[in-house]
């Protein structure tokens, strides 16, 4: 199966910019009847410091921007997905935003059963088929569900930059990353990060080592949960003991545990994920090198915007470094510590990634 990151980014990204040209309705005159948007979280819950949270941010932004009505429903278990979606159907919600690949099947089924219900799903597209689906028609292509927009992110491009930056900034010659669980949406960060470091070594003939992930073997460090911040702390402590001084935690709130350790001991720097931790976790700004941005909020906001403006389309939208859907955050506190040339190199790499002359897989030799 093609992974979303490997899919050719279709025209949608353009679509997301296009409407900017068309006149947006001023927030003062709310369109009547008021548009209803409902988000269904996965098990992580709305406060997962990760994609549920940032999706919700997108909804809230839209609420303030367009005066729409936005709600969320937390799922506590698998069987809640269908139930929560159904709840929104009953309430006559205009756009249902489901978060996470675990909601894929239920989203697809609902979409098929209710062809004019607009839906969007974060971190998922529909390459997979399910029993009862007509292969090639309902699934197995990118475009199979006209009323569902799959929001995918080429996160590895951003974490590639982060990796390069980390390699450039490390004093000990060792950088580290770990995940919550070995699942694609997590490992794609780690993969890009390793690639970035590797690329740096290629360029500079250095030998910066990445702890906690190895794309070749697919082995790495995982806390096996997204709850226990204490585990995050232990991971950081362990990495530091093994000599790492920059850490990219890809485990939602667990990462804050690592941040806490770095802040307390001052022995390491953290690279945030998903949102810019400078805003979401300001208490750690003085050990925050940068963040790998995965702008789910923007994606969700755009989708809602399209709904509001009546040009919602289904299919897959892959957000890339090109359209700024993924990126790395400013260096904030560390702006002075990052050398001008490193900044320049990062810009160059960014450009190369955009024009495709440089690809993550290419670096990893795949």
């Amino acid at each position: 199966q093609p992974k979303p990151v490997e899919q050719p980014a279709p025209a949608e990204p353009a679509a997301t910019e296009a409407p900017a040209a068309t006149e947006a309705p001023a927030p003062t005159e709310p369109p009547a009847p008021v548009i209803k948007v409902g988000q269904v979280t996965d098990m992580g819950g709305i406060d997962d410091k990760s994609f549920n949270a940032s999706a919700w941010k997108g909804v809230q932004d839209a609420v303030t921007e367009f005066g729409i009505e936005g709600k969320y429903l937390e799922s506590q278990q698998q069987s809640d997905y269908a139930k929560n979606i159904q709840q929104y159907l009953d309430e006559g919600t205009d756009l249902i935003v489901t978060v996470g690949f675990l909601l894929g099947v239920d989203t697809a089924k609902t979409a098929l059963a209710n062809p004019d219900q607009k839906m969007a799903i974060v971190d998922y597209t529909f390459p997979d088929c399910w029993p009862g689906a007509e292969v090639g028609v309902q699934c197995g292509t990118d475009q199979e569900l006209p009323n569902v927009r799959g929001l995918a992110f080429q996160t590895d491009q951003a974490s590639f930059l982060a990796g390069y930056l980390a390699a450039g900034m490390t004093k000990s010659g060792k950088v580290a990353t770990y995940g919550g669980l070995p699942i694609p949406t997590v490992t794609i960060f780690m993969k890009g990060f390793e690639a970035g470091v590797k690329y740096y070594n290629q360029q500079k003939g250095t030998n910066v080592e990445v702890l906690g992930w190895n794309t070749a073997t697919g082995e790495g460090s995982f806390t096996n949960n997204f709850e226990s911040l204490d585990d995050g702390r232990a991971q950081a402590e362990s990495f530091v003991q093994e000599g790492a001084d920059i850490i990219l935690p890809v485990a939602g709130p667990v990462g804050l545990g690592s941040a806490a350790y770095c802040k307390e001991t001052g022995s390491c720097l953290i690279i945030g994920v998903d949102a810019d931790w400078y805003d979401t976790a300001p208490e750690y700004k003085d050990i925050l090198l940068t963040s790998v941005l995965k702008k789910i909020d923007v994606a969700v906001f755009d989708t809602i915007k399209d709904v509001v403006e009546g040009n919602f389309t289904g299919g897959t939208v892959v957000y890339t470094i090109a359209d700024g859907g993924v990126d790395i955050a400013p260096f904030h506190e560390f702006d002075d510590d990052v050398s001008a040339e490193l900044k320049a190199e990062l810009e160059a790499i960014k450009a190369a990634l955009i024009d495709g002359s440089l690809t993550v897989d290419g670096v990893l030799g795949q």
Partner: protein
Amino acid sequence: MAAENLSTKIPSRKRIATGIALLVIGLLMSVFFLPGTETGQTATFGLNLSSSAAILLPDMTLPVQTSLYVLVLIVVFMGAYHMARGIRSPGALFGVVAFCFVAAFLIWATRGRSLSLIGMLTSSLVRATPIALAALCGVISERAAVVNIGIEGIMLIAAEASVVTASLSDSLYIGLMVGILSGALIAALHAWLVIRFKVDQIVSGVAINIFATGTTSFLSSKYLQHQSDLLNNSGTFPIISIPLLSKIPIIGPIFFENNLIVYLMMIIVIVMHIVLYYTPWGLRTRAVGEHPKAADTLGINVYLMRYVNVIVGGMIAGLGGAYFTLGSVGRFDEVMTAGKGFIGLAAMIFGNWNPLGAFTSSLIFGFADSLQVKMQILKVPIPSSILGMAPYIVTMIVLTGLVGQAIPPAADGQPYEK
């Protein structure tokens, strides 16, 4: 005559079995670990913490294959000797073998690489702290015959309470106090239910757990997550290195470079041991746990003893809860205790209901846990989720092999009717 060869005959069967088991373990060790290695390969173990400015020790560099052979031989020898002569204390036997196995595993995993041994041991103690505190809570209250499996819940509530107050008051110490008090409060509720109303003790514990999970998550998602920096940002206790002691190689960084809560935990272990076995209070506590009626007939107030012990236990658990926030990450998130309370109970049981034992077994967990983390970093070709099972499997093995017959206080879990 008959009696003698009898008393030797019966155990000897067991001995043979154990002996063979050991030989098998030795065999397995060589089968698993030797193949992967190359001659001349070495494994390097760091004996210093970058953070500690102690007298620097040289790193310990071991020849992989030789050391593996040695370890395997030790195990095999133990097996053979046990079969022939028989080794008195099963504890020692198990200890040595376990050590050899773990050492072999470490050396194998570290072959051609390096690993910070001290680092691992340090984190073992830190990781053991909440477990030990939970276990100590269990010990003190079960010595008075009150089972408390609500520890997990108590810790959750204490964690949240302490971080919120600490954030609001900008004082970690106030936070700590409140954490401990909240622990005492919930424990008092438990005591009230099981003593005054004779509620089944396990039931009350389960109820407390469910209730605590609900309440903390409820408040968390309703308030903490939204005013994060006002309510949920306490910072953590700094690491205090004890002047001279922390300079001792190996021991220093492990025991004398920790934060307040870790120190408190170690102090409580010692104090509780002394109190239980060398003071009237301890004597009465144990009597109440073993034979409450006897204590009663001697004019000891059974109910009072139980109330106090359970509440003190709650305070200790409260401290354990505060560890997760004030002692570790400075913020609260839903169900962040992640089952440590239950593991603490396991530690208490195979610590045989006494403080030192509970502490030691907590260390075993802590070790298994940090070992698991290190193994992942060393990219051992075992899936992380499988490695993640280590602490739990260790528990089961120890429970089964060593203290399957652990004897709880005689009246443990039973309400006392006059």
